[in-house]
C-alpha cells in the first residue's frame, strides 16, 4: 500500500531536509559564490562579498568636513589665480557633504558614483601635491595626507571579479601538480587495495575456522581515526627511531631511513602504504560480502565440468562480483581522492593533494576566493568520477 504524502508526513522528513540544507547545500552554494569574488578574510577591504561598492558615509562626511575647513582657511593665503581651483574643490566637497549627511551609516553605491568619489579623492590629492612646492605651509598640503588615506578606506570597491579566479587556476602550476599528486595517490592506492583486498576476501571466503579472528583484526585499522593512525605511521617512518624506515633501509627498498618523510617520492610511497594498510581490510570486507552471496552450486558444477581455479575465478567469481566490486571501488576512489587527514598529519602536507592545497589557501592564507575555486574544481572532478562509475554500474545504486 503506497500512500500520498500529507503535511503531517512531511514533518517527518523536515529535520533531514533542514540539516541537509543548512549544513550541506547552503555551504556548497556559498563555496560556488565565493569563487566569483576576490574574497580574503585577512584584508579589510575584501573580507566579505561586495557585489557593489560600499561607502562608510559617516566617516566620509566627517573627512569632507575637515578638508572643507582646511581649504577655507587656505583660500586667503594663495594667489588670485589659484583661488578659483580651491573654491571649486570646496564646492564639490560641500556637495558631497550635503548628499550623504543624512543617509545611513553605510550604503552601497552604483558603479558611476563609486568612480566619482574615487576621482574626487584623487583630485584633492593632486591639488595638495601640486601646491606643495609653491605654498609649503598650506593646511591642505601639510595636514590632508592622513585625512585622504582615511577617506580611501571609507570607500570599499566591489570585489566581484567574475571568472578571474578560474582563469588563474588554469595557469596555476601548483594546482596542476596537486591534481597530478591526487590522481597518482588515488589510482595507486585504490588499485593496490583492490588486488590485496580481493586476495584477502578470497582467502576469508575459503577459510571456515579462524574467520572471526581475521575479521576482528581487519576491523581495527579501519576503526582507528585516520589522524591517529597517520601519527602512528609518522612514528614508524621516523628517520632516527622509526622501525619501518630502518627495516626498509635494511631491505634496500629505500637508500636512507629519513627519505620516507622528506622526499617527494618517499612521502608519496609512505602515504600510499599507510592508506593501503588502513583500508585494504575494508575493501576485503566489502568484496567478501559480495562473494558470500554467490551460489555455491555454481562452483560445484564448474568443478564437475573440469574448470580450473583460474577459469572459475574469471568466468564465475569476477562477473558475479562485478557490482559489489564497482560499488567498493567507487566509494574507495572518492574517499582516496579527497584525502586530507592522512597527509596533513603524516607529513604536514606533502605530497600536496587538492584537499591540502585548498585548505592551505583557505584557512592558512585566508584566501577564500581562490581556495574555493580549487574546491569547486575538486567537486567537478568527483562528479565526473562518480558519473563514470554510475554509468558503468547502470544506475543500480539509486534504484529502489
Amino acid at each position: 500500500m503506497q500512500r500520498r504524502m500529507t503535511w503531517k508526513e512531511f514533518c517527518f522528513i523536515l529535520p533531514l531536509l533542514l540539516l541537509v540544507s543548512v549544513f550541506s547545500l547552503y555551504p556548497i552554494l556559498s563555496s560556488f559564490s565565493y569563487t566569483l569574488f576576490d574574497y580574503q578574510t585577512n584584508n579589510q577591504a575584501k573580507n566579505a562579498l561586495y557585489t557593489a561598492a560600499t561607502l562608510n558615509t559617516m566617516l566620509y562626511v566627517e573627512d569632507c568636513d575637515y578638508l572643507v575647513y582646511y581649504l577655507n582657511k587656505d583660500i586667503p593665503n594663495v594667489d588670485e589665480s589659484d583661488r578659483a581651483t580651491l573654491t571649486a574643490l570646496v564646492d564639490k566637497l560641500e556637495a558631497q557633504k550635503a548628499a550623504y549627511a543624512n543617509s545611513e551609516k553605510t550604503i552601497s553605491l552604483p558603479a558611476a558614483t563609486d568612480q566619482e568619489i574615487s576621482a574626487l579623492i584623487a583630485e584633492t590629492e593632486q591639488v595638495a601635491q601640486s601646491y606643495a612646492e609653491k605654498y609649503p605651509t598650506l593646511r591642505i598640503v601639510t595636514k590632508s595626507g592622513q585625512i585622504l588615506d582615511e577617506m580611501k578606506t571609507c570607500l570599499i570597491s566591489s570585489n566581484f571579479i567574475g571568472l578571474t579566479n578560474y582563469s588563474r587556476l588554469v595557469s596555476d602550476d601548483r594546482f596542476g601538480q596537486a591534481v597530478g599528486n591526487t590522481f597518482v595517490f588515488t589510482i595507486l592506492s585504490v588499485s593496490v587495495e583492490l588486488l590485496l583486498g580481493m586476495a584477502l576476501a578470497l582467502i576469508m571466503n575459503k577459510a571456515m575456522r579462524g574467520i572471526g579472528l581475521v575479521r576482528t583484526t581487519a576491523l581495527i585499522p579501519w576503526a582507528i581515526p585516520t589522524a591517529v593512525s597517520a601519527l602512528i605511521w609518522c612514528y614508524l617512518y621516523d628517520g632516527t627511531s622509526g622501525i619501518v624506515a630502518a627495516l626498509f633501509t635494511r631491505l634496500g627498498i629505500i637508500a636512507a631511513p629519513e627519505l620516507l618523510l622528506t622526499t617527494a617520492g618517499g612521502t608519496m610511497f609512505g602515504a600510499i602504504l599507510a592508506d593501503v594498510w588502513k583500508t585494504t581490510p575494508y575493501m576485503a570486507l566489502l568484496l567478501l560480502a559480495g562473494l558470500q552471496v554467490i551460489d555455491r552450486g555454481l562452483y560445484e558444477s564448474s568443478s564437475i565440468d573440469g574448470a580450473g581455479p583460474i577459469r572459475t575465478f574469471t568466468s564465475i567469481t569476477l562477473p558475479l562480483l562485478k557490482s559489489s566490486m564497482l560499488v567498493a571501488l567507487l566509494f574507495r576512489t572518492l574517499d582516496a581522492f579527497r584525502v586530507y587527514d592522512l597527509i596533513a598529519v603524516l607529513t604536514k602536507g606533502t605530497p600536496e593533494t587538492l584537499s591540502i592545497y585548498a585548505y592551505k589557501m583557505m584557512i592558512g592564507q585566508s584566501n577564500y576566493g581562490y581556495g574555493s575555486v580549487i574546491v569547486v574544481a575538486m567537486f567537478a572532478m568527483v562528479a565526473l568520477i562518480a558519473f563514470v562509475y554510475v554509468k558503468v554500474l547502470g544506475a543500480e545504486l539509486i534504484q529502489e
Partner: protein
Amino acid sequence: MTTQTAIQPDGPDQHRRIGHVFMWALIICFICINLFPFLWVLVTSFKPVGEIYGAETAFRVIAINPTINNYLTVVNKGILHSVFNSLIVSGITTLYVVMVASMSAYIIARIHFRGKTALMSLILGISMFPQMIIVGPIFNMFYQFRLLNSYWVTLAYSTITLPLAVWIMVAHFKQIPISVEEAARIDGCSQWQSLWKVIFPMAAPGVFTTAIMTFISAWNEYLLTLTLNAEKDFQTVPVAINTLRTQFSILWGEITAATILVVIPTLAIVLLFQKQIVSGITSGAVKE
C-alpha cells in the same frame, strides 16, 4: 597400475594440504602486518625517552627500564579531557542522527512521494562530495553566530553521518512487513507512535548498526573539529593527539602512550560490535 592407484588418492590430498598451509601462512602474515603498528606503539609507550632515541635501544622489543611516565605525562596534559569531548560530541551526534534518520527513513520506506528518487540521489551525492567544499562557508557561519569552540560542531557532523544513516535505516525499515504497521494503526496508533513503538523496536538491529557507524565516523572526524574548535578545551581526540607534536620536538613516548589511551574505546567498540559494523560497512554494497 598399482602405483597409479597408490598415488592418485594421495595427490589431490597433498595438494590440498599444501594449499591449506599456504593459506594459513598468508592469514597469519596478514594478521601480523595488521596488528604490528599497534604492538610497536604499545612497546614504545613503556620506554623511557633515552631508549626511544638511542641507536642501540630504539628497536628493542622489551624496554630495559620500563616506565609508565609517558602515560602519567599525557594524562597530566589533559588527554583524557579530549576523550571526554569526543564522547560528548560523538554521543550527541549519534542520538540526533539516529532520530532524524529514523523519521525520514520511515517516510522514505513507506510512502510514495514525488522527488523521492531525487532525495535519495541527493543524499548519496552528499556522501560522495569532498568535505573540503563545506569547510569555508561552515567556518564563516559558525564565526557569524559565535559558535566556534563549542559542542555545536556536532550539527556540522550531520553532513558526514546522515547520508549513510538514512541509507542503512531505509534498507532495514523496508524489510518490516507493512501489515505489522497496519495492525498497529487499526489498534489506534498514530504514525508517530507506530514509528517509535512498533517499527523502531522491530528494526533494532538496523538501528544499532546505524548508531555504531555514526558513532565511529563522528569519533574519527578530524577536518571540521580542526577548523571549528581550535581551542584546547573543545578539541576531540584526533585533533588533540596531534597537538602533542610540537614544532621543535616530537615526543614519541608521550604520543604512543596517548595513542594507546585514545584507541581503547575504539577497540572496545570493534570487539563488542563487530557483527553490526560488518553489516554497516557492507550494507548497500550487496544487492539482495
